[in-house]
């Protein structure tokens, strides 16, 4: 379960305080697929990265399975990201000089898995997302859709309870967007908790719940849309 309490994040831009998040409160239960919709600059990415333990909030708390993640040390938060969280980004952020297989192996290596385990798990995951025959292709040799699937496999490498997706369909055409969202639905049904931020309101039909973030505040907190 993810619990956000009175979460605020303030940036200083040219001497002025800019609030990316203002006293945000919400709870996401295990197994939910929550989409947070909002226009550019509304604070979506800041919220997602704060949930992922990557941005210290100015005030407020984020709990993951009852633990206040910003009370943890840097090392403990890194450990938490390794084991409990998976990230998917709009631009995939694959390591360009590594193959698909190696990209998926990296989080497994960071989690301390043996080379044999790394290869086995990475191969299984890439096969699962339909890339079993493209293990040795580098990102530059793969299509956008394939890169996004590698990124998805990498996010799933350590079988995290929570998947955090930052505009994952932002670089995809409608067909590939649908394919990715279907994957996320499948993963949610397999028990993963999914939190996705996007500016694309059409995506909310795949979610079990949606929220809208405007100027750093949650203005809507709806139940199942479709």
């Amino acid at each position, binding site marked *: 379960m993810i619990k956000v309490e009175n979460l605020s994040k303030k940036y200083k831009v040219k001497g002025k305080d800019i609030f990316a998040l203002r006293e945000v409160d919400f709870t996401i239960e295990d197994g939910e697929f929550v989409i947070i919709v909002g226009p550019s600059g509304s604070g979506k990415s*800041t919220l997602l990265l704060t949930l992922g333990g*990557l941005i210290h909030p100015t005030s407020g708390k984020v709990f993951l399975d009852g633990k206040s993640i910003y009370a943890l040390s840097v090392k403990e938060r890194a450990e938490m*990201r390794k084991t409990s969280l998976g990230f998917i*980004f709009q631009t995939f952020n694959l390591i360009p000089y590594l*193959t698909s297989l190696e990209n998926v192996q990296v989080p497994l290596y*960071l989690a301390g898995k043996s080379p044999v385990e790394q290869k086995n798990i990475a191969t299984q995951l890439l096969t699962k997302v339909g890339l079993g025959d493209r293990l040795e292709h580098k990102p530059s040799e793969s299509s956008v859709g394939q890169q996004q699937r590698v990124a998805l496999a990498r996010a799933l490498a350590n079988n995290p309870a929570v998947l955090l997706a*930052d505009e994952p369909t932002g670089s995809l055409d409608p067909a590939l967007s649908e394919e990715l969202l279907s994957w996320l639905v499948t993963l949610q049904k397999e028990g993963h908790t999914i939190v996705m931020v996007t500016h694309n309101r059409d995506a909310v039909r795949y979610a079990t719940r949606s929220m809208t973030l405007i100027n750093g505040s949650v203005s809507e907190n709806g139940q199942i849309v479709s």
Partner: protein
Amino acid sequence: MRRPLLAAVAEVAAARQRNKMRSINIVIKELYERKSRLLTALIIIILGIGVIVGIRTMTHFSEKAVARELDSLGANVLILPKSATISDYYTADLVGEELPEAYVDVITTSDLQGVDNLSPKLTFPVTIDEEDVYLTGILPLNEFTSKPLWQTAGTIFSLPEGCGSVSVPVSDKATSTRNRTIDSLAPNEVLVGSEVASRLNLLVDSPLIIKGEEFTVTAILPQTGTVDDGRIFAHLHTVQRLFETGPVVNVIEMVGCCSELSKGLLVDGLNKLLPDAKVVTIGQIVNTQQNTNNMMSKFSVISLIIVVLIGGISIANYMFANIHERRKEIGALLAIGATPGKICAIFLIKAAILGLVGGIIGYFVGTILAVTLGPRIADVPVLPLPSLLGYSVLISILLTTLSSLIPAIRAARMDPADILREI
């Protein structure tokens, strides 16, 4: 259908074997992928280490050569024609000008104290079987007494011992100086340096024609690494007769000893005794050589400082640029659970690999330069110094890792939020 499936499985299996994921693999793959970008940094390290290794190697062999020459010469005082310079020390008998051989008698009949041995020499270039060599006239026992390296040449000489070592029965030092010029080489006998023997295929008892006269090789001298290896030695009076010079020499080498030498009394006495000759002590020679070697040592220290400064700044610049280029990667790695320490380690491993490769290649570049250019610059034969490999690698790794420390720490402290939000 089975074959494609098996082929696919085999391909997957092969791929599995190929892929190992560790920090060092990430670093090596990144280096391989972006090899052109690290070339400049690597060239700077290689050149820097190469210059240091080159200078150190040449200095080492120059120092060795000085020690070897001095050791082989044995003499610590030279009596030269007035026009000779200190740089003529090792080839003092090739200056062309001559001294009267009578100077030897002047010294031996004087009451000068502290003279252990006198070795007059007269040298001329000769051509034998179309090979150019030097024929040096010596008084054999005197020559042998002053040259420890010749003592293994055979049974024709006996080993001298200690200060005042000429094997002539003496009652006191004053009389000993008057009985030093002893003949032990017959008029038709020659001693041959090892290099000449090799070039002319000479063995003991081989006949040899010099200026129309037949000689017999009495002994092949052991290799000394000095100019003596390229010479043929005959009796001084034989050479004087062959070249019709009369009783002259080019140089008189002297082994001086005891307090007379250390207090400068011997040199003062020689200067008074032989006002038309130049008396040079080994101290002056050593000082000149040491000054040259010290200059090279200082130059190598200056080079090291320049390499550390320029190399360090270049590596740091390269690392900063590399970190900026890879900030997306750093953000992604932090997001998937890499600790700042792991990020720092990745860049330091990269720096260490650069140092290792730069150090090894730099060592070989420096060694090749030293071996190739050493004989021309330092006028000594230069060989590889394997012991410098370890130092090269150590200095190189220290340089690259220390230069990369600040960039690596900066990479580790990058705010993932800044990176990931700009993506």
